[in-house]
């Protein structure tokens, strides 16, 4: 439980063995690290040299778990948690921005920037809702989007995490993306028959 041999590793192992409590303890650790790293990356960001979400998730992994030669399983589990947490962070961020806007507090950003921000906030909330809806129809697709979009995983990595083929990932991603796009931006009127 707390043997001191790497808390996050232990939690991942416990979780992979079916200990659902472990996820609850894991989440704040992962979320905190992702937030911190995002800030750190951004503070160092130079024009033309943009942050790679995968790098963010991988670095969070390294920082939390260390470089222990751990089972690949741990890494895939970690990706799954990280994807959820990234989603959670961005949704919370969007919610709190909405609240700030309503509260009328003076954001120290240019108007143009503020507009972009609120546009993005709206997008992320809509995406979140759409994903919840998608999960009810097809849970795995929703998880797949979480991994590919929020954790920035490649198709191969996503396949590894979900235990399906990369081909299946490509197929399901294609459909989920189309479906989500339609949910968010609306569908056109049906084609003339």
């Amino acid at each position: 439980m707390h043997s001191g041999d790497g808390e996050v590793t232990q939690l991942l192992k416990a979780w992979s063995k079916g200990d659902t409590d472990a996820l609850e303890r894991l989440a704040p650790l992962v979320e905190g690290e992702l937030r911190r790293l995002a800030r750190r990356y951004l503070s160092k960001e130079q024009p033309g040299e943009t942050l790679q979400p995968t790098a963010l998730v991988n670095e969070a992994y390294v920082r939390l778990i260390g470089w222990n030669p751990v089972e690949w399983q741990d890494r895939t589990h970690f990706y799954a948690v990280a994807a959820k947490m990234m989603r959670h962070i961005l949704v919370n961020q969007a919610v709190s921005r909405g609240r700030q806007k309503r509260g009328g507090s003076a954001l120290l950003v240019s108007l143009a920037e503020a507009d972009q921000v609120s546009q993005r906030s709206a997008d992320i909330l809509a995406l979140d809702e759409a994903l919840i809806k998608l999960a009810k129809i097809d849970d795995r697709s929703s998880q797949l989007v979480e991994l590919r979009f929020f954790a920035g995983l490649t198709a191969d990595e996503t396949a590894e995490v979900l235990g399906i083929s990369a081909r299946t990932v490509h197929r399901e991603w294609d459909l989920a993306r189309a479906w989500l796009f339609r949910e968010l931006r609306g569908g056109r009127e049906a084609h003339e028959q």
Partner: protein
Amino acid sequence: MTAERWKRIAAIYDSVVEAPPDGREALLGQVCQSDKDLRREIESLLDARERAEDFLSPDELHAHIRGLSVPEAAPGKRLGRYEILSAIGAGGMGEVYLAHDAELNRRVALKVLPAQFTRDEERVVRFRREARAASALSHPNIVTIYDVGRTGETWFIATEFVEGVTLRSRLAERTLAIPEALGIALQCASGLEAAHDARIVHGDVKPENILVRPDGVVKIVDFGLARSTQNCRELFDDATQSGAVVGTPRYMSPEQARGQKLDGRSDIFSLGAVMYEMIARQPAFRGATNAEVFAALLNSEPEPLTSSGLNAMMRNALAKDRDCRYQTMHDFAVDLRRFGERPQNLVPAVERLKSTQPLGGVVRDFPKNPRLSRRAILTGAGALGAGLSLYRLRSKRPGNAAQDGTPTVTPLTSFAGYKDYGSFSPDGERIVFSWNGGQGGSGGRQERDIYIKKISGGEPVRLTFAQQDDTHAAWSPDRRSIAFCRLMDNQTPYMRFAISIVPVSGGAERKITEGGEGVSWSPDGRTLAVAGLPPDSGGIFQVSLENGARTRLTGWSPHLDELPVFSPDGKWIVFTRSFGPRARELFVVPASGGSERQLTFEQQPTYGAAWTGDSKEIVFSSNQGGGGESLWRIPLGGGTPRRLASTFGGAFYPSISRKGDQLIYTESFRDTNIYLSEGAGFNGRSVLHHFGSPRGLIVSSRRDDSPNILGTDDRIAFVSKRTGNEEIWICDRDGRNPLQMSSFAGPDTGTPRWSPDGRWVAFDSSAAGNPNIYIVSVEGGPPRKLTSGPHGNYMPSWSVDGKRIYFKSDRSGSDQIWSITAQGGGATQITRSGACEAFSSPDGKLLYYTKRGWGAIWTVPAEGGPEEPVPELQRYDRIFRSWGVIRDGIYFMSREQGPRQTVWFFSFATRQVSPLLTLDKEPIWSYPDVALSADGSRLLTAHLDQEVNDLMLIQNFR
């Protein structure tokens, strides 16, 4: 939409997408037939697909993440997101302010660079490059650079704000005792070592750049910035022209004074000069003018100090020729540490004599306390098979504490299963705790319930019966009720608890509130302290038991606050705040509300806290300083924590009785041991499957595993946590003469591997922050780090000629086998398509390697080349760390279903695989679990023997 419908849509969508565009129409008509809705649905999805373009692209995510950094609102004069609070001072690099970082809600030191500096383009570029590099450094002895930026033309650096004084003012205030000076030097050395590992040279180590906090923690500032903001030329100009001092040359290395290119050895010199001054109370190199100081540091030696050990260190640090100095900061640090521990024994690393440390020397190093000396005896006995029962000898009947008033430690709950979170009844005669009822074992934990037990004896009485996990029970001051936390919700990112009360006599539970982890009664019994849940309502609250009213005690913070505990006088609440998984610090806040105050700065996880009876001190569990989680005490007013002498490793969740004379805590750790099975050995064709049953060979009450056998005389290298830390040990073939080879006191040291000649042991360790490959001589001397850089390097093994070391590294972006000479230097990549762990073939021409973690065995030429599977071994594709190569074949375990595992042998002569031994106990798996001697006759296996988990009672606690 139903799942069935969706599946149908998905199938059609896929086939249409894959069909050629001109055939889609026909295909749609064919598959949808008369189902118009279905067709419309597919068509609208196809249309969305056309329009989606870069929808959900990485760039889009990036834009969202960028949104995280937009500054939030705060009034007042500000630079970017920093609100300036007050001026701290001015230095060579410009003005320094105390500022508030509005976004992260923390105090920062803000250095604003002078305008003349920022007008010089080239300097700005250099400065930004340096600052960016330095900002990647994260080490407890380095002031962290948070941010480098500008608003308009003003460049600034935001760093961690350190409440403390410079070493310069400390030296002016008072004389430092030698241990204190050594401590400061050692902390500087560890910080600088970390920087050097990241290829950053400080370049201006001097007392002005060393901050000392009131709790004794030392922080180095201005990393790498010195050189981009000043240079030697300017100093020289100043010194020679006007005599005015811009900076001081007193701590400069000779090479720096000559304007040569700097490396880490220059910092070694400067730190040596600082250390000299701390001890001698005068600078190492003196002069009335800077020119005279330059002359002194280039040509003369400082006056000798009083101790020959110190002088030896000074000679090694202050050598004029950098090739004659300590070559790495690590070597300097090792000597500082050894000197601090055993001044009489110090022989500096660079001239350490060949000597085998006697066992007595090893045992003497253990802290003095009865339990430990028992452990030390175990260690010395080495080949004792029954260590566990000895460990249990400390059991003594509780309830009759020593009459002479000396503190005693006894286990309270020797029954099976997970026990945790003990706390006392108000009269101190009973405890309440969490227990899973005895279904222990190494699998996942089960839900626990609340139990009550008399300290003097008797069976535990169960109080709660829910399916959920009940923890953190606390006894009401009126003795009638127990408050506890019940884990309610698995769906939020935080553990969500119901805080409830149940009568001690049993009966209906009453839920008081929801909240985070931990609950505590006010001494008057009228309110409970509970933790809220972030993000909306984190923080610490008091909840009235009369009307349920919640009062928030702490200000807003983005961090997770947990485990509130009232002081016995009711004035304070201590709680933990998590800044990250490795930094859960103690805070106190007045129970009447007010501003919270941080007590610990250890950047270590803290597990629970308790107040001493007089409300003046707090006892908490932390792994600070390494050595495993122990109990520490710290005054309410802050200061340096002191370790409780009677706890050592694996101690969690303390609680103290109301009278303050009893303390209970959870002791929890894993015990693995190494077993020997002997067989007939290799018979010319294969290793025979006639192994005797395993017997304990290397046994202590903590971790002993990862065995490796030396080919020539069967000596054993292994990992042991018997000192509280994972360290590398060696011993004779019979387990005798254990000798500790590493003393990193840090995390993740393992995979010891003998060099073929038995003179060295290679291993991996994260002592320097990330895993690196080290070698250590069995004849003495500190371990040498062979690899550097920010990558993960692990699992070393030797070439047959002992000249090279193979290891796994992810420096190319994926896990591959690399090779490096045993002297260090550049590494060569061997595999290209993924690899986990490699061993050389007996003729040295091939490497056998596992393709990935839990993979099968492949080969690659030792210089790199075609990578091919070993065909006979491909069905054994669950191999992870538990394998090796000897002259006649390969031994391995490949994880099978179920707990029973078999060690197999693949004979090079017959190309056949045969079983060697089926194990009775489940292996550990995360570490190497097997080793076979060169002649195939001795098989070492490692098992998990026990997960110790007990509530421990300290009586006569003071």
